[in-house]
């Protein structure tokens, strides 16, 4: 994966974060993501993220499960292994509905979990770059992706002015990698000091 340059700002208050996100976006910076210790309501809207397609995937998995169950049972009970169960017709939809329902739920449940893990790049042994350890504790970490045109000093100063308590620049790999987690691994090649407004 490519290594890119990021300007990272840490906020310690939601009420500062929201106007900051608005200002940063208005200024034209590209926010790669905001990492928060808990789900912050309305932040996705503020960041201009589109709705997830996870539910559409879930619907498709559910339909797959439904047709799999219906196809499989009807094939077994009307063609492959025809038996008389309590004098009911061979094709007795009512009796199959519980199983069709179960398979619908199973397919959509498992499918959506796996899709979710894929979208979040979550898997055993998969590692991703952490911009700030505080993002899992008490810090809201805003990460701005730098392009060739971005003036890094200006971006840093802008973040600090917007209320970031801690600002730094990191070179980081955008994707994921496999391996052991190494606390001392150098994840970025330069780290500037704290900039205060």
């Amino acid at each position, binding site marked *: 994966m490519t290594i890119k340059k990021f300007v990272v700002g840490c906020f310690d208050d939601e009420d500062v974060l929201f106007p900051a996100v608005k200002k940063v976006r208005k200024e034209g910076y590209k926010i790669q993501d905001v990492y928060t210790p808990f789900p912050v*309501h*309305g932040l996705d809207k503020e960041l201009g993220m589109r*709705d997830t397609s996870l*539910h559409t995937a879930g*619907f498709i998995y559910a339909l797959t499960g439904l047709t799999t169950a219906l196809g499989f049972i009807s094939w077994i009970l009307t063609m492959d292994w025809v038996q008389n169960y*309590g*004098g*009911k017709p061979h094709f007795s939809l*009512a*009796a199959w*509905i*519980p199983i069709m329902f179960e398979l619908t739920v199973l397919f959509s449940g498992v499918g959506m979990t796996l899709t979710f893990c894929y979208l979040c790049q979550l898997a055993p042994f998969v590692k991703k770059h952490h911009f700030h350890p505080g993002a899992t504790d008490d810090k809201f970490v805003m990460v701005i992706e730098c392009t060739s045109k971005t003036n890094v000093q200006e971006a840093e100063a802008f973040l600090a002015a917007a209320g970031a308590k801690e600002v730094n620049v990191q070179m980081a790999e955008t994707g994921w990698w496999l391996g052991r987690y190494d606390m001392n691994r150098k994840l970025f090649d330069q780290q500037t000091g704290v900039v205060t407004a």
Partner: protein
Amino acid sequence: MVKQQFETPAKYKKWTYGLLAIGLVAFLAGFFFLGLSKDEHDQTRFWAGLLQNSLYFLMICNACMFFICINILGHASWHTTFRRIPEAISAVVPVFAVAALVVFLAIIMGHQHHIYHWIDKDAVASDKILSWKKGFLNPAFFLIWTIITLGVWTLVGRKIRQLSRQSDAGEITGEEARRYIWNNTVWAGIFVVFFALTTGSTIPWLWLMSIDAHWYSTMYSWYTFMSSFVGGLSLIALFVIFLKNKGYLEHTTREQLHDIGKYIFAFSIFWAYLWFSQFMLIWYANIPEETIYFKPRVQGVYKAIFWINFIVNFIAPILILMTRGSKRNYAVMTFMALLLVLGHWLDFYQMVAPGALGDHYNLGWYEFGTLALFSGLLMFFTGRALAKAPLVPENHPYFKESLIHHT
């Protein structure tokens, strides 16, 4: 400044009086041509129509109070901005309770044994199954339990509405707010427990299941309860959207509508679950005493109603309300809520009619006329109740939380 005082719009009044007029004409015509008819079938049709409508409207209005209570018990805040709407709808419960009681008294005193077969003493004496059920299915117990039920629904509902008004006096803070929430919780708990003993179990057995006196199903009460609950939620949605369109309830946003939509969606599925479970167990066991209930419905003359019921109340909401966009869309929600109110009305019809009228049912001017009459009553009394209290409980301790509600 928030618009707090509901003033009945002219169009609303026109619709209310229009429905009431149509309904009254149909009711009077029904009374003279059917109710006073020599033909017992016509008489049965008259009382069955009144029974179905009064019970349906009573139960959907009472379901609105249940909706408030479960939200209080769950310490939910999201509904606070529009809480006065289900409250106003539930204020109609006493009206429909009186209507239902009059209908019951008329059926039992007037000996309408085609509706309630078990009030016929001679038939019960020579009938093994009915004499087993005599301890439960007899006029005295029926009337006493019905009166207690209607009384408790009315009184506890009124108490909860009064508690809600307490917040109108002024800001509630600290210890006072804690006591306010606690009082609400206690009364909501009383209501919900009593609701479980009535709508959740005994009341549908007595009022509706006993029309098919020989038959029983353990799913029946839940099924009826769900039917009325979805109807009640749809009513809430309709009134919320109506008031939004008239410029009231500015704090109630799409976020709240989305959650009402989720309720309707989820409980439509639960309704279908019960609908199917009741059917499948009976279909699988194939015992004649039980299948007799589904014979006229699935294979007989009620076939069309039975399947329309399923399509309108399950297939339509699951497909239409599944997406996020449709639950946040006022037009789609209005359409679905209206469809479901009528759909569950039809559901109640297929609970009442086959047992009472047999194969010669007639879903015609009288049934729809009675529907108009009861809709008119509902609109009239809900409109009055809405005007009585401020529309937004601005001092409710959870109000701020409800404002920032986000789905």
